[in-house]
């Protein structure tokens, strides 16, 4: 297990290397540069700026320098916010993005899991139809539509929550719900299917026939086993909630890193773009690793070597 773990952790490095290389290449292929403004800067100024930021060097050298910086956790200067480093800009943004992602995750799990379980226990009766209805709505509503509806009803209509911003719990509610809508549906569907699958297993019949009470069968035998496959999707979902929140951040003006990603592309802010990409890629790779390890932990039948 330890060897497997070390191998998997080390494997993240080449993955990030390839992701960064591809992004770096694409980024420099984008027409235009960071110094393009409405008023054209004089060529001499651009040259000097390029020299200051090392953009006059060959592309491969720039990449090597970038990698060397990353090793020291130095993400370089930002081109659009000239007095701040990328590390400085992202430090606050990451926490906000993670907070939003984790809150949406908690909400999605605490609604999705019970809903899926209730649906399976009341199979083909009203609890099932209610839960399925919720998941149908969740699948059919893209997060940006959900966000618009929430703003329309709860901000503009009822005035309960502010339209945008990120100052205190009151402003957290709508973005969290908008982000959690789709994962709620996915978790509900998955849990329900997994529970129904388990219901037919022999060991459940055995438990019933040896006289275990209904409650105990459900809580000790069914739910525990049914959750194993559900865990495998929780990792990708958390990764999705952290990397996929940029739309929601944009709509609700949440100061997370997703917002910086979009502006950094538009502004050709290469270091900021590279940093956000690497953070996102690391999140996804790391979540996958966590899931695989967790999987072995909760299901003793799985052994890695």
């Amino acid at each position, binding site marked *: 297990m330890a060897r497997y773990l070390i191998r998997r952790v080390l*494997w993240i490095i*080449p*993955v*990030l290397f*390839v*992701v960064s290389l*591809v*992004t770096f290449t*694409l*980024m420099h*292929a*984008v*027409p235009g540069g960071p110094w393009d403004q409405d008023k054209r800067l004089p060529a001499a100024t651009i040259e000097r700026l390029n020299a200051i930021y090392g953009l006059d060097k060959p592309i491969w050298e720039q990449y090597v320098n970038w990698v060397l910086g990353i090793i020291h956790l130095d993400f370089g200067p930002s081109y659009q916010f000239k007095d701040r480093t990328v590390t400085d800009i992202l430090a606050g943004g990451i926490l906000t993005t993670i907070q939003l992602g984790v809150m949406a995750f908690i909400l999605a799990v605490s609604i999705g899991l019970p809903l899926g379980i209730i649906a399976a226990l009341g199979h083909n009766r009203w609890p099932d139809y209610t839960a399925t209805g919720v998941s*149908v709505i969740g*699948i*059919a*509503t*893209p*997060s*940006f*539509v959900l966000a*618009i509806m929430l703003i*329309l009803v709860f901000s*503009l209509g009822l005035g309960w929550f502010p339209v945008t911003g990120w100052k205190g719990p009151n402003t957290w509610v709508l973005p969290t719900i908008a982000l959690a809508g789709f994962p709620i549906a996915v978790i509900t569907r*998955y849990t329900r*299917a*997994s529970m*129904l*699958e388990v219901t037919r297993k022999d060991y459940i019949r055995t438990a019933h026939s040896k006289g275990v009470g209904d409650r105990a069968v459900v809580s000790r035998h069914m739910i525990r086993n049914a959750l194993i496959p559900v865990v495998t999707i929780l990792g990708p979902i958390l990764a999705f909630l952290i*990397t*996929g929140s*940029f*739309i929601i951040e*944009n709509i609700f003006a949440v100061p997370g890193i997703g917002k910086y*990603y*979009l502006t950094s*592309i538009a502004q050709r802010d290469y270091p900021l*773009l590279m940093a*956000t*990409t690497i953070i*996102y*890629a690391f999140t*996804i*790779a790391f979540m*996958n690793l966590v899931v695989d390890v967790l999987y072995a932990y909760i299901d003793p039948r799985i052994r890695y070597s």
Partner: protein
Amino acid sequence: MASTQVVARGAIEPRATTGLWREAWGRLRKNKLAIVGLIAVSILMLAAVFGPMIAPYPYDFPDKEALKAYGFKPLPPMTAGHLLGTDQLGRDLLSRLLDGARISMTVALVVQFVVLFIGVPLGAMAGWFGGRVDSFVMRFTDVVYAFPDLLFIILLSVTLKDTPLGQAMDGLLLVFIAIGLTSWVTVARLVRGQMLSLKETEFVEAAKAIGVSDRNIVTRHLLPNGNGPVIVAITLGIPGAILAEATLAYIGIGVQPPRASWGYLVADGEKYIRSSPHLVLFPAICIAVALLSFTFLGDGLRDALDPKLKGKQ
């Protein structure tokens, strides 16, 4: 729906040779949701093909007369010959939605074509050759998987925007290909898994024994035997692709005005949501119908093609 064939009592009906597909169809037919999905998908496809022909107006035609008569505000539904109203420029919403159907259905097809084109060969190679090829392909899928996909698509479409590829199909082709490039991993892993289990079977051994070439074993025996799950994965991948396109269009990536996909229409109508909610509502409903119908159809296909798997995933 039930067949009305009358069989004489006591007669032994020779069991017709029922292929996998016929049996699957029999099961699919009994699944109400799947049939609803199938019908909705067919309607969407018809709307995509014939929509622009039956549309009351060209999608980019501004009805200035009606707009002027209405004080230069978006027309509400059922006014001045516009069944679903118009936008702030007097463009007929129904006509724009029909053009949007064409975009969304093209997404569905082109993206899944790219997925098949990359995913099936790579998965088949990994599963068949095993060893180094297998680990190389699988590591490659790891890398692709770690790419933040929407962000990668945005970067790619900004990079190639001014190339011929970026201009093709009003800027859509590039987005479709980019979505495909980030979504083939599931299919590749699926095909690999199928290959691994099928290549140990007796019919493959028999084929090898009579001297069938590797290439023919893979293309004639293995792939056709494993195509059920692939079809299911492809169908269930369609809503993801449609959603990705809608999301990108919402933030202004992809389709170039005056053409508009459903996601773009939502973004465009958002400014007028209080006075003219129909501008957001109708495109949102279209997106919802498209997402649900493919999901229902995909779920139904999965249950129909592999009854053992029923309810799984």
